[in-house]
């Protein structure tokens, strides 16, 4: 039976938070989420989060953009209407390739950048009018919050967190 209770432990220093995360991980307790007002270096590694694959997606989006640019320049300039424009050699795509490089470069960057950002938004579930999910407004200003689910071990977790320097420990019902 899945518990609906979670413990919210508040910290007011990122160094203390890092030590607390390590202490909780050492007890093999699951950390549901950590809310921080700013990026804390090394937090993802301390929590054991898998590395992001966003860069890999960007690489493939870039290749997509490059392919699109090659297809587009080839279709428009060589296949569809190969005009003589200022003596540029439009006999084949290769003979006029240098002229297409700027657009190839820009489209590669454009696809890689924009599609990666959109991927980030989708994976992070961020969009306009999205309801904010922070459990306590102080976590956007000067407090750090660690959320741990409770499985009939409330007292045990509370005692552990109290030792880690938490400034406030609340047990809340998760809706």
């Amino acid at each position, binding site marked *: 039976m899945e518990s609906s209770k979670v413990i919210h432990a508040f910290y007011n220093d990122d160094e203390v938070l890092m030590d607390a995360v*390590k202490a909780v991980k050492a007890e093999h307790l699951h950390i549901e989420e950590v809310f921080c007002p700013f990026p804390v*270096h*090394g937090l993802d*590694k*301390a929590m*054991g989060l898998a590395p992001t694959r966003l*860069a890999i997606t960007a690489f493939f989006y870039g290749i997509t953009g490059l392919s699109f640019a090659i297809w587009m320049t080839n279709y428009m300039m060589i296949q569809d209407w190969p005009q003589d424009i200022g*003596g540029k050699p439009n006999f084949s795509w290769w003979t006029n390739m*240098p002229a297409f*490089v700027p657009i190839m470069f820009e489209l590669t960057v454009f696809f890689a950048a924009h599609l990666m950002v959109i991927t980030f938004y989708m994976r992070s579930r961020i969009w306009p009018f999205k309801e904010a999910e922070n459990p306590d407004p102080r976590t956007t200003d000067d407090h750090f919050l660690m959320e741990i689910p409770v499985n009939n071990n409330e007292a045990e977790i509370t005692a552990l967190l109290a030792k880690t320097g938490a400034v406030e420990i609340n047990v809340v019902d998760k809706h």
Partner: protein
Amino acid sequence: MYQFSGKLKTFSLALILVGLVGIAYSFYSAPKTVEEAKEIIAHQAAHGDNHATSHEETKVDAHKNEAHVGDESHNTTEAHHDAVKDAHVVADAHGEHHDDAHAEHVLHQLKNKPWSALYVSLFFFLGITLLVLAFYAIQRVAQAGWSILLFRVMEAITANIVPTSIVMLIVVISAVMHWNHMFPWMAEGTFDPTSPNYDSIIDGKSWWMNVPGWAIRSIIYLAIWNAYRWFIRKNSIKEDTANDNNKTYKLSYNVSVGFIFLFMISESLMSWDWIMGLDPHWFSTLFAWYVLASLLVSALTVIAFVTIYLRSKGALPAVNDSHIHDLAKYMFGFSVFWTYLWFAQFMLIWYADIPEETTYFAMRFNEYNLPFLAMVVMNFVFPVLLLLNSDFKSVPWFVFIGGIVILAGHYIDIFVMVMPGTVGAQWSFGIPEISSLLFFLGVFIYATFNSFAKANPIPKGNPFLGESEHYHYYNIEHRGESSGDHH
């Protein structure tokens, strides 16, 4: 302290010796008379190798250009004629018969071959050493925190500036004394209107392109670089024990600021004098940057190589994977920067197709097609694909493979800068080129490791040393380290 091992010393001396023998042989076997040159031409024709066909291409190209400008203005056509004079002589001769003019032309090119082979390697190694020096000065001026542990490596590499400068001085003197004919504008009668060799275009540049000016400037460049190297090495070792509230360190800083200013000027002028002067009819505004980029990426690769080697020998225990990762990032970034400049120069000339500029690339495309295109793959496509991945950049083995291709690619880059102007279609890659490479490689190894053994491998007096020792790029795992060590 690092010990320059006897094995490595013997190896470098062997390279120098083999190189010297090869260089001597290549000078000895170069043709001395027109008859010998004719024999070589006949030999080439008999073999029916690609020189003949490529000459035809040159001819067609030259003629196409001629037709192109023909109806515009006579002035341009004339200028253009001068610019492609070389190509015409070669092309016409091949189109009709092997006349004496052609044989003489080929003789000059063949005589240039051993000199050019020496010059390509010399410029490659001198330039790399110089750019290591400039990169080192930049690290000091930028007060970089990561690279302090590599300072002694960079200083050791820059020791190579002394022997390469001496060889460069010899080449400069030989050019002035007309012992070599690599620089066409130094030929007799170029500036004399009564001479058959008179060249009005070069004469128009004689305020800059004259032998005394060229020689004096060359010596000034070498003097500036050697003076800074001598000073900064001395002062850097003084920093170790100075304990004078960073006064010595600040002096090094100030002198480095001055050096970067002088370097940027002398590097630009140097690339005009020593490389662009090989094609005196041609000019390009971003050429100095292009040469800089080529040498800079090679210099970073060399720093990475020497660092990886010394670390594997246990001489640099504090250098970690993050330092290697940073060097690899620089190699990657400046490979792209080189490509950007290469393409910017090529594409602008290709796009506008002004004959006096285009001949430069027409020559390279027709006679040096394979090296010209291969270097773009080696200097751009390969490093980009290999060093794009962040994990790969901290693996010495990957950095080594990427670096070998980058160095070979930039050697070819210098080769394609120098050879078309000096030996034209008579280029090849054989004993003269290889032995020059071996010679300068041997000099480089000897100078570098000899110098590294003479100072503390850790610059103890540098205020940023602690930062450098704890340097850690956030997303890479150092070998022998668990994620628990991250902070």
